[in-house]
């Protein structure tokens, strides 16, 4: 949005010039009453400019607030709470992402935990049968032992059949479970686009605020260093762009190097 607020209009400047000229004239002619009337006119003129500016700013602010409602359909017609609602929607979506990733991780681990003992016992049984088989080939087996071996082998084929079916099933559902990546990706994309729209709108709000400051004559305060210092020790979660940051390690190797430089 285009807002040129602090520069007075040409009309206004013309009016001020005329007043100034008239004022000098009156003062030189010792006409103090008329002069003070002129001074009043000048102040009025300036006030009007401020009021007009504030009016424009308010409209700009209103527009920016309205723009926060990026996804109109979701929050129906209650524009009053549109911004709040959109943010609620974003956090709902993020919660959904958390839920989905957690479920996928749990299910995948369930499948693996179920499969691990199956493949383990298949392997163990195969190893036992192999030693028996070697004994058979070297003709070290009694007929009774052979009968036992024969039955055990028979059973092993059955178990192998059902076990591998189960293992394949689990592997398949682990693959399917990875679908969360697609779903969460889509949701995250929407949240990211909401965030960047919000960012744009915030930038225009900040611009407007800066103009308010220049019209009214407030200087922005400078506060920063303290907050930065405190952030250090707090947890930040995963580093998204570790390779672009100096103060962050990018790999386990770097952690190890740092620790060994400290005498670990």
């Amino acid at each position: 949005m285009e807002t040129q607020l602090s520069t007075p209009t040409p009309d206004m400047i013309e009016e001020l010039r005329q007043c100034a000229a008239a004022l000098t004239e009156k003062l030189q002619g010792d006409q103090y009453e008329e002069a003070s009337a002129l001074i009043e006119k000048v102040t009025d003129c300036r006030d009007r400019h401020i009021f007009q500016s504030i009016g424009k700013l308010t409209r700009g602010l209103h527009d920016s607030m309205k723009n926060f409602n990026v996804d109109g359909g979701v929050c129906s017609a209650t524009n009053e709470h549109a911004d709040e609602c959109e943010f609620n929607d974003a956090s709902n979506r993020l919660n959904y992402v958390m839920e989905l990733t957690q479920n996928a991780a749990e299910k995948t681990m369930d499948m693996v935990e179920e499969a691990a003992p199956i493949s383990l016992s298949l392997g163990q049984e195969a190893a036992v049968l192999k030693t028996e088989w070697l004994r058979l080939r070297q003709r070290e087996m009694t007929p009774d032992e052979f009968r036992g071996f024969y039955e055990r082998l028979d059973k092993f084929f059955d178990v192998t059949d059902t076990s591998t079916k189960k293992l394949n099933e689990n592997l398949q559902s682990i693959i399917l479970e990875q679908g969360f990546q697609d779903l969460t990706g889509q949701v995250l994309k929407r949240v990211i686009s909401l965030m960047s729209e919000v960012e744009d709108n915030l930038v225009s709000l900040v611009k407007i605020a800066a103009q308010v400051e220049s019209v009214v004559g407030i200087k922005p305060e400078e506060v920063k260093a303290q907050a930065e210092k405190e952030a250090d020790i707090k947890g930040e979660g995963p580093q998204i762009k570790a390779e672009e940051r100096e103060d962050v390690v990018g790999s386990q190797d770097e952690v190890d190097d740092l620790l060994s430089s400290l005498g670990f």
Partner: protein
Amino acid sequence: MKILIVDDFSTMRRIIKNLLRDLGFTNTQEADDGLTALPMLKGGDFDFLVTDWNMPGMTGIELLKEVRADDKLASLPTLMVTAEAKKDQIVEAAQAGVNGYVVKPFTAQALKEKIEKIFDRV
């Protein structure tokens, strides 16, 4: 060997638990932050602590400091497994007396190496 795993995400606790089981450590217990972990540590003879950093309630670094300040627990071997990767944080953990530091996401191999290193030294 009795191990306490402290992480606010149940999936991460489960992953660590599984990796530890593969390494032959089957006696594990879990806590979801420092506040639940500390009484468990004080009450039960744990031999090893694996903790995350960023948790609600009491963070892992606070837990580590509490552990080092406690007469009975002061020498408990502690491994930090965390997504926190700022150099300042690693230095702070080292100064607080951590025995090993693994950044997430990690490999089974990295976890194994760090654990073995800790027990070689203890």
